[in-house]
């Protein structure tokens, strides 16, 4: 029972990070129907930015976390204009953009390797005070609280942005029908740029949290999370913020339980087994959104 409780806490913290990553990815899908896999490299860069800002420039975490997130957002906007935007007029633009994004991701990953001189780095010690508390016999660390807090606030802010503001209405209108949105006064290109920015920010926040939790940063980190985040997205029933969060938590919990009760070697088997199972039983995902109402 003790172990179960402990792994639940670990799983929730991990799951929130998957959710952040997956949410950014699905924002782009909803906006352009583009499978922007370079998102994984933007995530990796997010952690590298955090390392630059803290280890090299000696900035504290309160500055470095938002700083790295903003830089990742800007990098993702660059990805949009360099890799995707100009393919707009092609008939096969989704496929072309996917390939372009794959290529961009490879280049960005290589650039990280170069930037880090082909070694794994870590955020400086003492960047965030590590403490832990016992609550009902369970160990809760300050890092876990930070992850759940930051990720939770980010998700809520994103939800408010999407449902309560003009920006959110514009993003949703473009996701629904690009041409119609432009007739209603919405500049679809600037909305897409904004979506890539938000998506990059989400990846950046997730990356900094992961870097803090596992204190390791390397160029390929994002790729492992990409597949897990995609699973979270499909599990949740792509298209709703709620679905992505729940999907992320499910993947996080599955991952943490497997590590504890079986062995970490089975982790991916269990996660993808779960995915297959859900897709057979409930092909639309746990929270389906009618395709006409995809909101994200």
């Amino acid at each position, binding site marked *: 029972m003790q172990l179960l409780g402990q792994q639940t806490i670990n799983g929730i913290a991990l799951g929130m990070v998957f959710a952040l990553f997956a949410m950014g990815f699905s924002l782009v899908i909803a906006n352009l129907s583009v499978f922007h896999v370079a998102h994984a490299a933007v995530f990796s860069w997010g952690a590298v930015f955090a390392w630059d800002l803290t280890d090299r420039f000696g900035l504290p975490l309160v500055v470095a976390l938002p700083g790295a997130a903003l830089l990742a957002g800007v990098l993702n906007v660059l990805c949009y204009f360099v890799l995707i935007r100009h393919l707009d007029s092609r008939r096969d633009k989704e496929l072309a953009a996917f390939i372009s994004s794959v290529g961009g991701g490879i280049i960005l990953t290589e650039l990280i390797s170069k930037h880090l001189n082909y070694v794994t780095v870590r955020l400086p010690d003492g960047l965030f005070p590590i403490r832990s508390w016992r609550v009902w016999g369970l160990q809760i660390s300050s890092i876990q609280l930070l992850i759940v807090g930051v990720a939770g606030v980010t998700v809520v802010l994103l939800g408010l942005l999407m449902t309560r503001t003009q920006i959110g*209405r*514009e993003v949703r209108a473009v996701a629904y029908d690009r041409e*119609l949105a432009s007739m*209603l*006064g919405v500049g679809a290109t600037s909305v897409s740029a904004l979506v890539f920015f938000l998506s990059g920010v989400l990846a950046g926040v997730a990356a900094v949290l992961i870097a803090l939790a596992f204190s390791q940063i390397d160029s390929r980190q994002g790729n492992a999370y990409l597949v897990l985040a995609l699973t979270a997205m499909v599990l949740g029933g792509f298209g709703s913020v709620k679905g992505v969060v729940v999907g992320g938590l499910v993947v996080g919990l599955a991952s943490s339980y497997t590590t504890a009760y079986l062995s970490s070697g089975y982790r991916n088997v269990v996660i993808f087994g779960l995915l297959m199972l859900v897709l057979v039983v409930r092909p639309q995902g746990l929270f389906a959104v009618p395709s006409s*109402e995809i*909101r994200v």
Partner: protein
Amino acid sequence: MHTSDDLLSLTQVTIRYGRVEAVTDASFSVRPGEVVALLGANGAGKTSLLKSISGLVPVAAGDIRLRGSSILKKRPEIVLRSGIAHSPEGRRVVASLTVEENLELTGRASRRRATRADLLSGFEECYELFPRLFERRQQGSGLLSGGEQQMLAIARAIMARPEVMLLDEPSMGLAPIMTQSIYAVLSKRTGTLGEAAIILAEQGASLALTLADTACLLKRGEVVYHGPASELTAEQTVAAYMGTAEERQAGSPASP
């Protein structure tokens, strides 16, 4: 072609989709507050013309001017912000937004400096014209009936406070009674509907002509009549839709 009291003028506009020429050398103009019925059979080019005004399809040749300056190559959102609102064919609404979100979206996107008061007076105007929308303002617009979606598509255009409204077949696919009630609203001509010029594209001529000052009749992409609505004869209309009497006798194919 352009005279100083024209608000919007099209000069020899040609529109092509690949090799298909949808509109050929179309010219007509609209004065402030004027209602123009843009008539023509299926495939005559009405939608293409309206889309070219909005910047949604490129113009192969010719010019389109608003208050004397060309709006060719302007992006649709810029055209809207310069005063031309388009209510598209097939009553497209943003189904993932509620009725009021649809209105607010355009109200704000069309004028970057729209204040809360502008917005509220826009809502009020729309809800006064279409009380049904008020009742359903919090409802997802994808759940509205076809007639209500058409009301929303018109109301949304009103939210932009345009000088020119492009209404593409507001009667399409609606029961006659619903069409009647929408036309009853359009004929009120108060507020924005009273001030704005309207280009009303319809297949059915009779209803549109009750509202129009001017008629513009298209036949296979060419303007075959442009003049006072009252002087458009039934014969001319029939000829545009079915071909002239000689053409019919000769058995040449009528427009599709």
